[in-house]
């Protein structure tokens, strides 16, 4: 397909002009997400500074194995999606669909592990910061606050991942209709940026939840 016949909106001068602008818009959106999660991480670190002993006591109760497995899953998923993007750039549509499906399944695995298994396990051990919170005594206040950040942070991350699952499914659907080609695959790139970003947010959550304060 020649460039002149690819549709573009009338405020743009060409399809590549529109594509570049759309990708720039996605990067700018991700910058706003950095500030969004950044505020949370700042509040987290601030609270930890004033409740260090309690936070560390609470952190020791996190499920390190599940957290680590989830980290590996997300990183693999990002890799899978990036492979899919590379295939899209070279016109291998079926491999694009395969890679995106793998990424989607890995994302789903994360959600099941995190919310189906880990959260359920946390509830059963009374780590939910409600009236029957398990850790009592002097470090209880800080430990409770740690678990507040844990549930809030993983909830917000989970919401973003759920949106990502929807977007990746949309890409798979559009790819199956033959919408993408080496000349046009802007949505694949844009969703890829978002998907990787959600991964990066997890890479910051992982040490905050599972690693800091765990050392004896």
């Amino acid at each position, binding site marked *: 397909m020649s460039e002149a016949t690819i549709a573009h909106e*009338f*405020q743009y*001068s060409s399809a590549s002009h529109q594509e570049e*602008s759309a990708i720039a818009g996605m990067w700018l959106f991700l910058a*706003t*997400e950095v500030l969004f999660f950044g505020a949370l991480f700042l509040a987290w670190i601030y*609270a930890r500074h*004033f409740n260090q002993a*309690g936070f560390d006591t609470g952190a020791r109760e996190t499920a390190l194995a599940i957290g680590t497995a989830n980290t590996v899953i997300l990183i693999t998923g990002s890799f899978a999606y990036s492979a899919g993007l590379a295939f899209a750039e070279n016109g291998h549509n079926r491999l694009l669909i395969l890679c995106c499906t793998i990424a989607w399944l890995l994302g789903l695995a994360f959600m099941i592990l995190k919310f189906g298994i880990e959260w359920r396990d946390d509830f059963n051990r009374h780590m939910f910061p409600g009236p029957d919170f398990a850790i009592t005594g002097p470090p209880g206040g800080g430990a409770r*606050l740690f678990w507040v950040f844990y549930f809030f942070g993983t909830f917000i991350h989970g919401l973003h991942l759920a949106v990502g699952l929807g977007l990746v499914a949309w890409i798979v659907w559009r790819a199956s209709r033959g919408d993408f080609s080496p000349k046009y695959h802007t949505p694949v790139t844009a969703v890829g940026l978002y998907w990787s970003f959600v991964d990066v947010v997890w890479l910051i959550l992982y040490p905050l939840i599972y690693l800091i304060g765990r050392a004896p």
Partner: protein
Amino acid sequence: MSVAEIEAPKPGRSYLTEGLTIRSWLFTTDHKRIAILYLITITIFFFIGGIAAAFVRYNLIAPEGMIGSAETYNRLFTMHGVVMVWFFLVPAVPVTLGNFLVPLMIGARDLAFPRINLLSWYLFVLAGAVVLYALFTGGLETGWTFYTPFSTLYSRGNVAAAALAIVISGFSSIATGLNFIISIHRLRAPGMTWYKMPVFLWSLYATSVILVLATPVLAMLLLLLTFERIFHIGVFDPAAGGDPLLFQHLFWFYSHPAVYIMILPGMGVISEIVPAFSSKPLFGYKFVVWCSIAIAVISFLVWGHHMFVSGQSLFSALVFSLLSFMVAIPSAIKVFNWLGTMHKGFIRFDAPMLYAIGFIGLFTVGGLTGLFVAALAADVHFHDTYFVIAHFHYVMVGGMVSAYFAGLHFWWPKITGRNYPEMWGRAAALIIFIGFNFTFFPQFILGYLGMPRRYHSYPPEFQDLNVLSSAGATILAAGYLLPLFYLTWSLLRGERASANPWGATGLEWKTSSPPPSENFAVTPVVTEPPYNYPLREATHSHV
């Protein structure tokens, strides 16, 4: 880059006439129609916020409070603040004049993301519905600042609903800012380099940078507030290991840049009007441009000046005070540059210019009184008194609202294709200027004498100044009502406007009034600097 050719528009055809159904308006992606949708919405909020203010000033006529219930009074000033800040001042110029003019000024056919533009309006309407629900059922009595632990543990109002409404409005703001940044970077017409852009575009660019970087912090903070309110998570509760000061730091980290979100577009409007009505190029264009950027950057570094008596460290206080003095300098430079533009110009006194001159005077008073509260030891006395209220109303209302009206009148012929009745326009500008000063100048004195903010009732020695202020408020209200009537009248009966009734420079004046849907029949090519006014007596007359 290919240039699309479109046949010349038929006479009488404009963005207003293409599609006359409600569907064509509610599902439009035309930035000009979206601007009109926003204009109607924020006008409604302006009057809601204004009515709340009227009740506030009415209450303060008597020392014991004319409105019996202190709780009701607290809800009224909170409604006034929340509605005016997030549903009028933050959106005002960007979503109306900005949405309409950015593509026209850069010579484009629309913004970069038209559907996101429409989405931003729907988000704004949704946010507005939720906030009106929160304010009218149960109400909110925390002040627009939501300080914890009052808002989280002791308030009897609809804190969570109001907070969520503001979060949704924040998404709307971010979408608008994102759209402007990408459009200004990527859709400028051939020949329009950065230094050929009108200052209005630079101002909106700076505003948009603040919008996209500061608003997400507010969104996260209000989510934490909502969870604390509903689930008692304890992040701001000292008894649970949290800290109420954390709320203040995060709140002001957004809310101080937010006031520059509010004023920068207004300064951009004035930078267009003063050259146009002096028939002279803007004095010191590059300085004005870089002052806008400087204000945007430094605005992120001064939030602690709201907390000089709140319990932050001495070192922090000193740093924030120094930076607060520094942030005032670019604004001062802009004022000097506007005066320099008028110097040796050919000044005409149409309504936009009257509002602009009023802006320069009132904004200068507001900015100078900002120095009073930036000075640490003075702020210890003035903090949380009527002095602060007077200061920010001088900049926000005397400044920003005047600038909004200035822009509305200046671009009214372009947007609607009609001229407003000039004498009424000038009369309203004068009434507003007089009423405003009577309302707010006495409040500087009240603040010095020690009258605290947010007081439903007050000791009798403050009554005389309060009565004077409330009397001024009736004049101000009359001044604000006038444009509602004569601008609406002009839509039906005003004379038709020409493409460039003011003889102003800028690409928006090169297309018809009102413009066709696609803005330009042929993509313009820019060769001249901005404000290319010929240096001789202006010979045209106002059409």
